């Protein structure tokens, strides 16, 4: 479903972020991408979301090269991919409800759909009581759960979680990983980047290890090792 075909990314200052990386991800897979900071994990995700263009190679989603898409098609494509970030990236001036509703509005859903789906998805991440709170009134773990709910609400085919637990304590980390696992069990592809060894070991799912812009290991039921 997702295919990176000999993808390289060289930044204008000649630093090589990715060096001829190839791999594929099948539907309903749970893939963890691990590696030290600067290994190229985030660049990989940015290339997939068409935030940046590869210097060489192709990134395919299904049959389409995401870098040949026009502006409008990119928007449609991104609505099909849920995203969760380390720093949550919620809209600070909107309530939990509005944050999730915004994503649906952007996808052109009707008011009825929004009124129905937002509480439902908040229930899924166990956050219904905080529906009218603003982000600054929530803890880190709660914010991340809102972010996951937002990523889920458009029923995407893929969820990308970029270091989602980087700012969280172990208990919240565990919760978030369980939620991601549940989402994957329901049939959504999950791509997770992390450098938390504990998470990887407990998951027992595929691990792609990166270093200096290259894939150094691709393990089907991987453990995190150096």
């Amino acid at each position: 479903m997702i295919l990176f075909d000999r993808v390289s990314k060289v930044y204008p200052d000649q630093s090589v972020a990715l060096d001829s990386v190839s791999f594929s991800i099948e539907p309903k897979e749970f893939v963890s991408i691990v590696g030290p900071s600067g290994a190229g994990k985030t660049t990989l995700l940015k290339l997939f979301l068409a935030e940046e263009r590869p210097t060489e190679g192709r990134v395919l989603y299904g049959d389409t090269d995401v870098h040949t898409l026009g502006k409008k098609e990119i928007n449609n494509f991104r609505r099909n991919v849920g995203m969760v970030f380390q720093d949550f990236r919620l809209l600070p001036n909107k309530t939990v409800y509005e944050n999730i509703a915004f994503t649906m509005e952007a996808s052109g859903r009707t008011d009825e759909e929004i009124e129905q789906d937002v509480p439902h998805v908040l229930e899924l991440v166990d956050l219904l009581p905080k529906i009218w709170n603003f982000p600054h009134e929530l803890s880190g773990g709660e914010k991340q759960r809102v972010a996951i709910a937002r990523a889920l609400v458009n029923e995407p085919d893929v969820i990308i979680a970029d270091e989602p637990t980087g700012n969280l304590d172990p208990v919240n980390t565990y919760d978030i990983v369980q939620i991601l696992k549940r989402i994957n069990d329901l049939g959504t592809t999950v791509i997770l980047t992390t450098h938390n060894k504990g998470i990887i070991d407990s998951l027992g799912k595929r691990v792609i290890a990166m270093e200096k812009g290259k894939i150094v290991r691709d393990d089907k039921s991987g453990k995190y090792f150096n």
Partner: protein
Amino acid sequence: MIENADTWTKLKRITKAGFFNFWRNGTVSLASVLVMMVTLLAIGFISFAGAILDTALAELRDKIDVNVTFVPSAKEAEVLEIKQTIESLPEVLLVTYVSREDALEAFKERHKNDQSILSALDELGENPLGAVLNVKARDPSQYASVAQFLESDGTISNGGVSVIDRVNYFENKAAIDRLASIISSADRLGFALTIILAVISMLIAFNTIRLTIYIAKDEIAVMRLVGASMTYIQGPFVVVGVIYGVVAGLITLLMFLPMTYWLGSATESFFAGFNIFSYYVRHLPEMAFIVFFSGVMIGALSSILAIRRYLKV
């Protein structure tokens, strides 16, 4: 994904988001409204200044005329004949005839508090004043030729003796010339000042709005990432810009009331009967249009221009 929401729903959402953003960013909104208000005040005062200048100009132009005073013995028919001759000149806009009796009435009225003059008039027994023709030219520069005609033309005479006592143009000429040049330079200066002030205040308002959008640039990035379209991101910001304009415009229009009221009597005595307060009240619809239009345009355009940088992802 199928888009189910219709255009009306989208418009409603954008407007609503704009109002919410305006309200929730209270401090930023307040600051922007205040800056916008200063801009609109400047634009408002510029239109006032223009009006004052125009009125003063018209007033001065109105004051310039040539008075032809006839000798008391001139017959009314002769005077009226001359009036017709003058009226036929292409440069002349209007000729008003003031009869000897009217001139006397006006004279008495003017000196009604001066007993010695009035008793001197009574003593005299007969009306010592001649009839007067007030000649107004189409343009101040044409008075010279009109006066020339009156002075020289031999037809205006009664058996070789001129019935015209005097033409006061040459007495006023110096003053008229000076006024004409002051008016024209004030006109030019006013225009230049208008442009400069308007540009400066617009730049300040533009920069303030750009700053508010700069603050929201992370938000804009998030919106891009969840796949929101250009219009959907930009829309609420434009709405907020329009709200800045409308709110600032409303405050500005309200503030002009006490301001012009306070300045009213001062302008009335200084600018020959021009009362800025009554002008404002009379021209409220035009002023409201100027202020709201400027506010809304500055607000909306600033938002559109400022946000473009952050939409290139």
